[in-house]
């Protein structure tokens, strides 16, 4: 049996679709339920529903053999695992955004950056040789420059709707993000007979 960690919500729905195309009895994922562990009727897959940021943890510890999670979460977690497949859905971009006039401030000696991706932001600005003050927020990141908490934000941008509605613009696109299939480093080898055929099957349905 293969244990799969999935992020709750929209991502899980897209995963169910691609799993079903691959002939997995993943209908269980479509059912309205409050259960956290779901099994396929043929008992070949067990799904765990976890918070997106916990997917890398479950996979790194080997509790889940594989998982599906956004690249943004992977970058931030820095977990030791294999990244097997770019599923090419849930696409977005990790960007630096702010008021248009902040563009020339990007290399200011003391830029204040609000983000929920603290580790990724640290690595990014370190690699650019810039000292910045990183302010950790957990949601509504766009509020930070509006209220003067930060100069810019570092966050994922999908449609840009929230940015526009608040007079903010993308100043710098940094990373392309999409959903990735990850595997535990040991499971990939010890359960190769289950994981590898699944991956080659999934490859066929990636848009």
């Amino acid at each position, binding site marked *: 049996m293969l244990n799969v960690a999935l992020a709750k919500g929209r991502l899980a729905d897209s995963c169910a679709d691609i799993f079903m195309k691959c002939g997995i009895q993943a209908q269980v994922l479509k059912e309205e339920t409050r259960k956290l562990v779901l099994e396929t009727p043929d008992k070949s897959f067990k799904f765990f529903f976890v918070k997106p940021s916990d997917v890398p*943890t479950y996979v*790194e*510890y*080997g*509790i889940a053999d594989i998982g599906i999670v956004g690249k943004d979460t992977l970058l931030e977690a820095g*977990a*030791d*695992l*294999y*990244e*097997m497949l*770019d599923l090419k859905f849930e696409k977005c971009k990790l960007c630096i955004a702010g008021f248009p006039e902040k563009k020339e401030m990007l290399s200011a000696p003391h830029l204040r950056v609000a983000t929920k991706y603290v580790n990724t932001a640290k690595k990014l600005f370190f690699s650019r040789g810039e000292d910045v003050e990183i302010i950790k927020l957990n949601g509504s990141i766009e509020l930070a420059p509006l209220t003067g908490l930060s100069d810019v934000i570092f966050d994922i941008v999908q449609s840009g709707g929230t940015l526009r509605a608040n007079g903010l613009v993308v100043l710098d696109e940094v990373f392309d993000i999409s959903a*990735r299939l990850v*595997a*535990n*480093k*040991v*499971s*990939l*080898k*010890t*359960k*190769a007979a289950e994981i590898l055929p699944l991956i080659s099957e999934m490859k066929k349905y990636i848009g």
Partner: protein
Amino acid sequence: MTYFKLPSGLRDILPQESARLDQTEEVLRKKFKEAGFSSVRTAGIEYYDTFACIKSSVPQASMFKMTDKDGNLIVLRPDMTLACARIAATKLRDGKAKLCYFSNVYDFSASGNSDREVAQAGVEIFGEDGAESDADAVAFAIGCLQAAGLKNFMVDIGHVGFYKGLLEGSGLTEEAAEEIRGYINAKDAVNTEIALRENGANERAQAAILALPSLFGDVRILKEAEGLTDNAMALSALKHLQRVYDCLKKKGVEKYVSFDLGTVKSLSYYSGMVFTGLAAGVGAPVLSGGRYNDLCAQFGRDLSAVGFAIGLMRVLRAQEEETGC
């Protein structure tokens, strides 16, 4: 104080578990002795410079550092292979030695799937080289895991020379090679491709390096890899692994063996074959080792060497998985 706690990443081992640990140690002690290994106990605290001045795999941030009375920087032993290599190079007279140990090593930065105090049992063989010696080490590792009661496990073999060979003449800078190594180690094909393109590696090397993340499986991948390159170092690494496999087959243990040419560990002292032991149900390797022919020379004496260390707590977890309790 109303309570007494331990710092994070550390634990006490209470009688029941300790008894099981003793039992496994006992089995391994017997096994090591029968195979002609002599046990050593290396100092628990060493000079920081011992680990800092050589090309080793211990990053500065992962050592427990303290200051000695005379102002020297000292560290809690971060790695047993380095300690044994230091002993073999500086304190033993023979050109050959078979050392074993049961010791803890300390990892300051450990997080996630590892502890900061790691109980290891390991062996280091000095003064032997070649495919046969490598196969002996792998077969002995398999024997040790079997003796510890594991059935559902495998030993995954790679070779640092293959990636090194591909890098030769690829046109990649050392910095770019290190960045790409990280991506390959994570089997991250997306970023590997982007980084190869951005850093302007030549086409043949690009194709070969891009294939690395998927070059794992049974012995057939060695043949598959041959077609990817005509670099002499890379090809000789493949030929070497084939010879190791042939020896293992003669010993009748090939069913435990798989290969992964995409195992490219961080800047490390390994110079040839590398291997990890993987047990079903345990999310991290139970054993890891390899050949390090260039390490002893850095301690002042040129000795070929191969060895491995077993993570005892992970073996206990694997035993639990097997017995289902």
